[in-house]
């Protein structure tokens, strides 16, 4: 499991004056479901296209399965790609599409037909072989694109936002199927998406990219719970940020002072700044507890005034104004007991509290 299958070394890609990918270094492990996540224009698709061979790096090298493929054309790389629009050949039917890459496979007609049937079973479209490409729905096209790539038994399957064009329900269903399929075939998947929820759901590991840089590479859980930068904390999920000064640090407990929150305590094995310096404190909306009475604790509590709230079905988003803070704090509550609106009326005084281990220390950014 820990064997490296893709090794990206100091890869930079310039388009004219625009730097699309900036000195990327990345190892993808065999059998992994690896996602490249970032806002549009962050370089994730360019990086994927360099893995496929459609773009050549301006600098750096790419190794796939121990071979330097930096300058190899796409047709000889041991990878296959599922395109954003699926690129199902319009002049061929489903079987012909799936068989497209098998011209040089050396299989007999009969063996090939069997393989195509197996692939149709795998993508749950048995009997669809004779369908024309324009008779398929979006989800079916996506599956055919998968089958067409997987029949080649690539070392790595590259997926360029393959779920972006599907509606929400179908997308969620395809996410589960994709994950199961990946576990079933055991092929390494490199998946490009701008949808952070999708990346969290699917991936073993995620590389978060921004403006050509790989900001952070980690598991979904640690990206969400322990982000290392403000960008990652902000891009994945919702986060409240507070300016803070570190007062003291000992025995895994950092004591800080925030103008908007008062004294704060953070449980952390080490601090990113020394006492006397500033950092950013980050707290997720769902980490807050909310009450109408003043809590009996010196740290990690703040008095606020209820702002607007939004009912989202399974949970509600409350916005709490705090003295000295421009934007209200975002608080998420599970809707355990019916509608909360009547309790959390606008302008009502509330206390927010959170625990030592639910806040994250981040470096200050300009």
């Amino acid at each position: 499991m820990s064997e490296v299958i893709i090794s990206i070394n100091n890869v930079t890609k310039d388009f004219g004056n625009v730097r699309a990918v900036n000195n990327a270094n990345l190892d993808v492990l065999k059998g992994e479901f690896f996602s490249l996540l970032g806002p549009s224009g962050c370089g994730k698709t360019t990086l994927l296209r360099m893995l496929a061979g459609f773009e050549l790096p301006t600098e750096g090298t790419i190794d796939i399965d121990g071979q330097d493929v930096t300058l190899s054309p796409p047709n000889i790389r041991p990878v296959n790609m599922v395109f954003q629009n699926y690129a199902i050949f319009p002049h061929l039917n489903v079987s012909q599409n799936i068989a497209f890459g098998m011209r040089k496979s050396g299989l007999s007609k009969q063996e090939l037909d069997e393989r195509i049937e197996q692939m149709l079973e795998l993508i749950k479209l048995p009997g669809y072989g004779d369908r024309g490409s324009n008779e398929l729905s979006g989800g079916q096209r996506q599956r055919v694109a998968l089958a067409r790539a997987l029949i080649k038994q690539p070392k790595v399957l590259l997926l360029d936002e393959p779920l972006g064009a599907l509606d929400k329900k179908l997308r969620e269903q395809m996410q589960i199927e994709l994950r199961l399929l990946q576990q079933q075939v055991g092929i390494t998947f490199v998946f490009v998406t701008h949808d952070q929820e999708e990346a969290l759901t699917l991936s073993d590991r995620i590389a978060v990219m921004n403006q050509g840089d790989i900001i952070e590479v980690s598991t979904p859980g640690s990206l969400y719970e322990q982000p290392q930068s403000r960008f990652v904390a902000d891009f994945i999920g919702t986060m409240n940020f507070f300016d803070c000064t570190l007062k003291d640090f000992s025995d895994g407990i950092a004591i800080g002072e925030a103008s908007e929150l008062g004294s704060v305590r953070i449980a952390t094995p080490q601090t990113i700044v020394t006492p006397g310096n500033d950092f950013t404190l980050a707290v997720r909306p769902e980490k807050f507890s909310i009450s109408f009475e003043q809590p009996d604790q010196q740290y990690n509590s703040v008095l606020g005034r209820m702002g607007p709230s939004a009912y989202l079905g399974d949970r509600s988003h409350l916005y709490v104004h705090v003295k000295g803070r421009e934007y209200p704090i975002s608080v998420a509550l599970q809707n355990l007991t019916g509608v909360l609106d009547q309790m959390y009326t606008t302008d009502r005084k509330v206390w927010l509290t959170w625990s030592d281990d639910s806040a994250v220390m981040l470096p200050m950014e300009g």
Partner: protein
Amino acid sequence: MIRTRSRLNTLTVYAVAYLIFLYAPVAVLPLFSFNDSQYITFPLLGFTFKWYAQLADSQGLQNALINSLKVGLSVAFLSTVLGIFAAKGVTRYRMRRSGLLISFIMVPLVIPEIILGISLLMTFSVGGIKLSLITVGIGHLMLCTPFSMLVLISRMEGFDKSYEEAAQDLGENAWWTFWRVTFPIILPGVVASFLLTFTISFDEFILAFFLAGTDATLPLHIWSQLRFPDKLPSVLALGAIIVMVSTVVIFAAELIRRGGVDLGNKSKV
């Protein structure tokens, strides 16, 4: 309501009048080609096939027809091949000033053919090149390539380059990618380009007039026959045949261009 109806009637009258204006002269051709008289006058005398029969006996006509087919087919083939190259270059590669380049190639479309004919004639005579069907072909190629390009660029722009990338990704080199993916998808455009340029070359008179040596093309032959009044009815018969074949070919080209592989479905995901 009444207003709409009367407007519709005016429009209908206009449309019918326009169609008569367009097609009446063309209809005169076949009409008199079956008339049993040398002279183009009413009343019609009788029905005959003899002018058509006369065509079959004319050696000059048959030579001219063969010459025109030779030139037309070669020009259609070459200009379509050039059109495919150009369309691929323009639509697939990041080229600076490709717009300017296209404009330059399109220039023969707007230069009067008589000017084009004279300048080509001068060029050939300066270069000591003997006039022949080949020089006619070169002239026609200049005229036809822009049409091929227009047809093929629009076809090529209509399909996503990810189809070609997918073919490469699935293990095909540039050659096989072209034959297995690009060509089948642009085939309707290729056929349309071929038929269109063939028709242009086949009907073309002015360039051929300047550039043909002793070998006449069909339009030149027809022109030469007009000097003899007794040949006029069989020229009409020939004209009737050409009009019919041209119409069928153009309609076929347009049908094929519109049909073929539906490229719209890729956005329907």
